[in-house]
């Protein structure tokens, strides 16, 4: 037991170090911008005095390392800084409105997590079930059709899937709305219905990969002697797979599920833009377009953190589920 704990702590430490280095990479990349934030905020109408003023306000006159440490401390205390666009807007409106990045990101992050959760709830059971079926009926017409379908849906861009779904489920047969305007205080069922199309799009992309991996993991095991034995005992094919093959195939399957949830993070950006879903991906793209650097920086770090965390989870789960990895020789 203590060895597991040790391995997990080790991996967590590694993950934290990676995250720390990634934060440096992001910070340095942003500081490659010509000029600085102050000029970026003020744009065309920059006078030397106002540039100096904003520099002092944002602490841009400090040296790079001090600024990085400051930013890092802000990140750790969830003080993500001030959004340029919101600052400009607030100034124009006379100082009202929310200007911190944290206030902007928090509701959108929860929206995105909701979308990811809905997707996972649909995708994971369907993928594992279909993967088991494809392994059970391998090399039949069903398996070949599933192979064709999954390969096509893995390789299509997300927005193609999204627009095909919009065409059939929103325009021709108005089952779900094509715009997901989520707002606070919405009833759960309505919210679910409005986020169904983006969730289905993500499901299509993710399920295909998970299903292929489930099938491959199970088929890999079917040549093992103990499976042969189970078959010779006279067990039904379904029982052989579910009782004997599946538990041993669990490690690679869990791994691929976690990796696909990590993939959702990138997929979510495009899908949120297509459906105008008010999530963090949409915010990220909008901020990229108007070069709202603090928001871009914070979103980027959040995406990277989620990505690292999910990869870490995959790593740890596969170690826990496989005794051979737990006791490395």
């Amino acid at each position, binding site marked *: 037991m203590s060895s597991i704990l040790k391995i997990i702590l080790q991996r967590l430490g590694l993950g934290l170090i*990676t*995250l720390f*280095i*990634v934060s440096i*990479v*992001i910070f340095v*990349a*942003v500081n*490659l*911008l*010509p000029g600085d934030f102050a000029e*970026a905020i003020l744009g065309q109408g920059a006078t030397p005095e106002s540039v100096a003023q904003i520099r002092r306000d944002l602490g841009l006159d400090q040296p790079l390392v001090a600024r990085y440490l400051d930013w890092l401390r802000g990140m750790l205390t969830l003080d993500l800084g001030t959004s340029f666009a919101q600052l400009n807007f607030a100034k124009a409106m006379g100082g009202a409105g929310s200007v911190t990045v944290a206030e902007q990101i928090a509701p959108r992050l929860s929206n995105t997590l909701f979308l990811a959760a809905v997707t996972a709830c649909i995708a994971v059971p369907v993928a594992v079930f279909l993967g088991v079926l494809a392994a059970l*009926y*391998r*090399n039949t*017409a*069903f398996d070949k059709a599933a192979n*064709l379908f999954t*390969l*096509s849906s*893995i*390789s*299509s*861009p*997300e*927005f*193609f899937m999204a*627009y*095909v779904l*919009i*065409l*059939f489920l929103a*325009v*021709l047969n108005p*089952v779900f709305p094509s715009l997901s305007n989520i707002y606070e205080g919405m009833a759960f*069922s*309505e919210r679910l*219905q409005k986020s169904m199309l983006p969730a289905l799009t993500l499901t299509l992309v993710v399920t295909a990969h998970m299903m292929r991996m489930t099938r491959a993991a199970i*088929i890999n095991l079917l040549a093992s002697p103990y499976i042969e034995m189970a078959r010779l005992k006279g067990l039904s*094919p*379904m029982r052989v797979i579910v009782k004997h093959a599946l538990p041993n195939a669990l490690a690679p399957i869990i791994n691929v599920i976690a990796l696909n949830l*990590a993939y959702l*993070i*990138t997929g979510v*950006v*495009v899908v949120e*833009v*297509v459906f105008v879903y008010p999530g963090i991906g949409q915010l*990220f*793209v909008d901020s*990229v*377009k108007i*070069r709202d650097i603090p928001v*871009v920086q914070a*979103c*980027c770090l959040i*995406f*990277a953190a989620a*990505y690292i965390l999910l*990869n870490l989870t995959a790593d740890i789960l596969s170690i826990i589920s496989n005794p051979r990895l737990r006791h490395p020789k």
Partner: protein
Amino acid sequence: MSGLFEFNALSWLAIILVLLFGAAFVFRRVGQTVTGNAPKFRDMPYGAAFGYVLAAALLIFAVWYYLQPTVTDVGVPNAGVMFFRWAIHGFLIAAIAAFLFRLLGRSIGTAGSKKLFRTMPLTASFGILVILIYAFVAIFAGAIAPHGQAEVFGTANIMAGGDPALGGDPAFPLGTDQIGRDILSRLIYGAQNTVGIAFITTCLAFVIGGSLGFLAATIQGWLDELLSRGVDVLMAIPSLIFALLLMTIASVWAARLGVPLTVFMVLIIALIDSTRVFRLARAVGLNIVVMDYIEAAKLRGEGLGYLVFKEILPNAMAPLLAEFGLRFCFVFLTISSLSFLGVGIQPPLADWGTMVRDLAPFINFAAFAPTAAITPLLAAGAIALLTVAVNFVVDWMLHKSSGLKE
């Protein structure tokens, strides 16, 4: 309203499922009695029987739906049926074309290529055919396209289909976009721009990642350690997110330096994807450098360049080639996604991702004018078709080289 609909749909689904289960039971029992307990029916699990019945039901429904009239009684076009027919026709044409192409490959060419085509699945021959067509269109885009890619005509938003009664124009078979550019020409030029840029980017990623990977495998030591840790860090950031971050910065530099943003995009995506190539090249290289012939070459006193390019590279060609196909797909999808999000290939260059974004609102008119939805789906479908084709070919290559027969 919506709750009521969901209840109805769900209850209908439940009724259909129960009916299908009943039919499966009957099917299995009838099969047993008719064939006199043949093993196929005697040992058939209920799940398999259900599968047969479900497939038959779907087939019957598809044929019934295909034969529905395209115009309803009140004169409104039945868009769903039209799309379904187009999809079926497209699928059949693709299958027949792939079959004919494979037949052609089996009868002409050298003995080697004939053998290759004899064992080829239909999906792979379809993939090769599509790739050849795309390459042809991309190279000769200027000669094929009826108009220039940035040429603006007087009439904007002409419908696709070329039927004047439905708002089309025979001069523009796929219509014109919001500012009056010919969509067909832009689709053709899109092959040149999107595919060409993706191809250049992939090549660049392979030159960077491949040479560094082999170098790390050959020299090892601190260089290997340094490069590997650097790649680990870069791979910890999701690629599309990192690309978007770097593009934000590049857009400022591009404006300042007067260099097109597209050049920056090629460099950024090549850099990000070269990390994945590096991983593979290093892993493959590490397996090769322990071989005896490398030892012999080192003893002969060959230089580093000779080792990497004359000894390692030829032996690593097969996995790298498969990776090139997959990597091209990723790069192509990333570029399309960036363009779709509005930060990729910049106008006036015609590009499929940008076209999808610009033409997408037309989809909302599909219920009244089915042809309106064609153009955005054609642009997105052009992207999907190429990546699907490349994937089919790579899948076949991997299957062949691994010797898997399952």
